[in-house]
Each structure stands twice: as C-alpha cells, then as structure tokens.
C-alpha cells in the first residue's frame, strides 16, 4: 500500500528581498514517518519549517496539508490544520509569564467541554510523557534548564495530540546524554502515538537514532530525500562530506554498537 502523504510541497519559492532561499522546492512527508531535514547553515531549514506551518508565505508554489491547500484556505480550515499540527521551537518558545503547566493548558483552552481539572490532568500527563518530573509543572520557564525547556516545549506541542509535530533543532544545545534521551523520547512517541515527525537538525546522532527518512536541503531545494542507506550512496560533494565526515563515522559507530 502506498503510504499516505500528509504534507506535500510543490514548486516552493521563498524569497526575502533579493535573497532567494528556496527555488522550485518539492517535498513529501508521509504519515507516521520521522523525517529529518538537514542542510548547511543558511540553507533555509528553519525557513522551510516556517513555510509549512504557515508563518512565512512563499512567493509561489503550493503547500498541501492533510489534503487541504494550506495557502488558499479559509481561516477556519487553517485553524483546523493548526490544531492537527504541533510545533516545538528551538528554545521551547514557552510563554515566560506562565508556568509550564499553564503553558501546556494554553492549546487545551481551545477545546470546548474541558473542565479546569481535566485540563490540569492532561497537562500533567503531557509533562510526564515528555520526560519531566511533575513538579516542573509549577515552575516558570526561566527556572528550567535548556533541556527541560525543550521537553516542556514538546509537551505543549503534543497537548492536542496532533498528527504531525514539527521540531526545530530538538537536540541543539543538549548534552550528549540529554540529547540521546530526547531522541529516544521522540522515536517512542512517534511509534506509540502514530505521530508524523518533521524535524530540523544538525545532529547526526539524532538522524541515525530517530529518522526514517532524511531530506537534504542544498542548492535552494531538496536535493535528495531517502533513507540513511540511500544518503550514504549519494555522490553530491556536500552530501558526501556530511554523511562521510569524521563526525558521521562516529555516529555510525555509535549506532552499530547500539544495534
């Protein structure tokens, strides 16, 4: 059976002034997969993420999400798309004036019929599922470490049980132990909840540990997309350097040892 396409980009062109970031970019994301997006600095990985979630409007091209044309849609449909997706920004982007629990309750306020007790219980559940102690729920974002903020950001992104989550550099700035715990968390959640995960990363260990498919951004488009094995065979100089560099070899060694 052909896997269901949840997000489909066709001919995307994004431009800031004269600076063309993406030109004629195509990409498909399939249901239930973990897609890792890699690319050199300034190739527009985060711009691509922001384009898909509707924060940046491309100059031309089409974004189709869940079969809906996301660029030409009513506000209601857009709101529904937003409810079916969750986003974790780089540093969590938690609201600083709210506690972690209140942050996670923010999206829950949009659901009719939830009592405050239910919202609290669900928020506690999400805090715990994202690997935080429940006491973290009463803390403010400024009292948390970087890794805890990312987990809290993930908990908020998962608050409505979205079908797709977007993660912007989920492991950047984490220590190796914290980063690998986060990888396990993402992989586990995606399997148990049938999540589709779109993650932007620089971290080769994350790519090895969690991603089903990898998309490489270069030359203003998605140069190649495929599994790790396919990436290793690509001849393009940047892709070759990326997946065959000293760090990549170390990541493969770790992966082999773990398998």
């Amino acid at each position, binding site marked *: 059976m052909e896997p269901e396409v949840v997000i489909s980009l066709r001919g995307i062109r994004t431009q800031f002034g004269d600076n063309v970031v993406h030109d004629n970019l195509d990409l498909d994301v399939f249901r239930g997969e973990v897609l890792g997006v890699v690319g050199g600095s300034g190739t527009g990985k985060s711009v691509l993420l922001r384009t898909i979630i509707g924060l940046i409007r491309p100059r031309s091209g089409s974004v189709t999400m869940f079969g809906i044309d996301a660029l030409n849609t009513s506000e209601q449909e857009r709101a*529904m798309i937003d*409810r079916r997706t969750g986003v974790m920004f780089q540093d969590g982007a938690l609201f*600083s004036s709210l506690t972690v629990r209140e942050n996670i309750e923010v999206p*829950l306020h949009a*659901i*009719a*019929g*939830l*009592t405050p007790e*239910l919202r609290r*219980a*669900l928020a*506690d*559940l*999400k*805090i*715990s*599922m994202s690997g935080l102690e*429940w006491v973290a729920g009463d803390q403010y974002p*400024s009292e948390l470490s970087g890794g805890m903020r990312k987990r809290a950001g993930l908990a908020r992104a*998962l608050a*409505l*049980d979205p079908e797709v989550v977007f993660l912007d550099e989920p492991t950047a700035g984490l220590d190796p132990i914290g980063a690998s715990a986060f990888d396990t968390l993402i992989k*586990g959640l995606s*399997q*148990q*909840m*049938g999540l589709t995960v779109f993650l932007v990363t620089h971290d080769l260990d994350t790519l090895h540990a969690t991603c089903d498919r990898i998309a490489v951004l270069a030359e203003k488009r998605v140069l190649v997309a495929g599994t790790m094995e396919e990436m290793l065979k690509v001849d393009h100089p940047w892709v070759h350097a990326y997946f065959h560099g000293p760090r990549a070899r170390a990541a493969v060694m770790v992966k082999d040892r773990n398998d």
Partner: protein
Amino acid sequence: MQREGTASAEVAVRDGGESRSVVLSGVLTVHTLGALDAELAALPAKDTRIDMSSVARLDTAGAWAVVTLQRRMTAAGKRAEIDGADAHQVDLLDTVGNAIPEIPDSQNKQTSFADWLESVGRAFASGATFLMELSGFLGIFLSRLARAVVHPGEFRLTALVHHCQEVGLRAVPIVSLMAFLIGVVLAFQGSAQLRQFGAEVFVVDLIAISILRELGILLTAIIVAGRTASAFTAAIGSMKMREEIDAMQTLGIDPAMALFVPRILALLLMLPILGLIANIAGLLGGAIMSWIELGISPAMFRTRLIEGTGISHVVVGMVKAPVFALIIGLVGCHAGMKVGGNAESLGRMTSNAVVTAIFAVIVADALFSILFAQMGV
C-alpha cells in the same frame, strides 16, 4: 477519518448485577473528552469490563480517561479489565498508564496564618537587605571615586563625558518643556484662587517659591529617574546577562570603576544643571501665563520676584539635587547588577529600578522638607 465536531464518543453500560460491561465506541480524543469523562466519572465502583473493540480513534486524552476509570475501579477494590483493544491501543494505554504522575496530596495545602507571617517577614528582610546593599553600593562608589582622585589614570573621562551627554544634554528638552508647563499650570490655578481675594500679584510668590523650592528639582529628578535609572539598569543589566561583567573582572577591569563611577558622577554633575534649567523654564512659563491671565507684565514679574523671593529658596531647592542624583544612580546601577541570566529579569529589574528610584526621590524630598522646616529655612 472522522474529525472533531462531527465525531463523538459513545458510552454504553450493560449492567449485570455483580459486574457490568462498559462498551466504548466512536472517537475517544481530546475533543470528546469533556463529555466522555463526565459519563465515566458518574459510574459507581463495580467489577467492570471495558470493551474497546469498537473504538474508532484513541489518543492520549482518551487513553487517559480509560486508564483513569480502570484505576478508580481498582482503587475501590474492584476488578477492571480492558478488552478488545488493538495492539496500538494497548501500547498507548500502557504508555499513558505509566506516565500518569503520582501527585502527593500535600500539594494542595491551604496557606495558613504562619505562612502569611513568614511572607511578611521575608518581605521585610528583603527590604532591609536592599537598603544594606544600596549603602554598600554607595560605599563602593565613594571608594572608587577617591581612588580616581589618587590614580587619575584609572578614571574614564571619555565615559564620563558620554554619560553627561546622555543624562544631561539629551534630557534638556523634556525637562524644560515639563517645567515650563508646570509654571503655566501654577500661574493659571493660582490666579484663579488668588483673584477671589484680589491678591493676584502674589501669584508671583506662589510660582517662584513652589518652583524654586520644590517642584523644579523634584519633577526634574522624577523625569531623570524614569529616563536614566532605567537606562542604567538596562545597560548594566544586559552586560551582566551576557556575562560581560564577569569577563571584565577576569580581564582585570574593575566594573565599579568602569561602569558605576562615570554614570553616577555624570548624574551628580548634570542633575543640578537640569534643575536650574527647570527652574528657569518654570519661571518663564509662570511669567508668560501671569501676563496673559492677570496682566502682570514681565517687568513687574521680575521686580516682584526679586523683592519677594530670597536666594535661600533657590539654595534649598538646589541642595537636594546631588542627593537625588546619588539615589537615582545607585538604584539604577544596583538594579542592573541584580539582573540574572534571562531577559525576564532584565525587564523586571528595569521597571523595579524606575519605581524604586522615583519612590526614593520622593521620600528623600519629604525628609528634606521636615529638615528645612525644623531648621526654619
């Protein structure tokens, strides 16, 4: 697939005496949780078989409701089994079951009188600590100033001139406009009252004494507190936030000498000048308004001013300026050094600095009033 709004969760209870089966069907998601939880919570404790074979969609919220029902029955000593869930759903139920946090009851304790008393005590202690720290900052400032006199090479003249420009020159337009308008208001209000007694000419004394003794320097200090205390806190605080102050220390630069001395000294030099400008602008505004409103010509205003108002009023006003300057500078620098590692604390300390500086200036002014009243000047 069914979507939110159209879909709902169905609960069918088949009661069989000692036990019962609860058949769940439809969509068990966060969107249907409100109704679902209300129905499940109403079920009394009893041996229960939860049939999930016709659940179309289950998410963590739905799984939470099912697990919560199961736990409630088990806690009441009854059996509760889940039937008919497919592999994914069993997986999800397990995950959610393991994740539900155990929250001790002690969390929801009431705040007692002792807690309240403790918070009052803490607030008082932190206020006392604040005053101690502020006097500590005064000490640091004076010692560095003395050091600058002994070792003029360490003194940063360029920084001083820069801050004089920022604190003094840039504040001249707003300070003079404010004082001018205050003069206008005093003349206008004063003339309306004094006319009733036919004592219009005393409006000159009213304007002169109130502006020279009190309002000129007090309002200038308040404006400078708003402008400059916040600027000091923001500048020093953002350096503190980015560890620049730590870097200065490791490079052998004394932050107090490099940052505090030029700023506070600039305020000490500039605030009296700004106060003087405010006095002149206030008198000018008063004179113009008296001329328009009461027909007191500028020449008459001048004569009356010189005859009726002694130089002591100016001295009484101006003597406060250095004290206000010290308060504003110390509060601003102290708040800047209190900034922690994040942007929230920078914003909080900046607004704290302004409020504290204005409050302290007004308290100091009140103390001066009492002092001068006792001295009889």
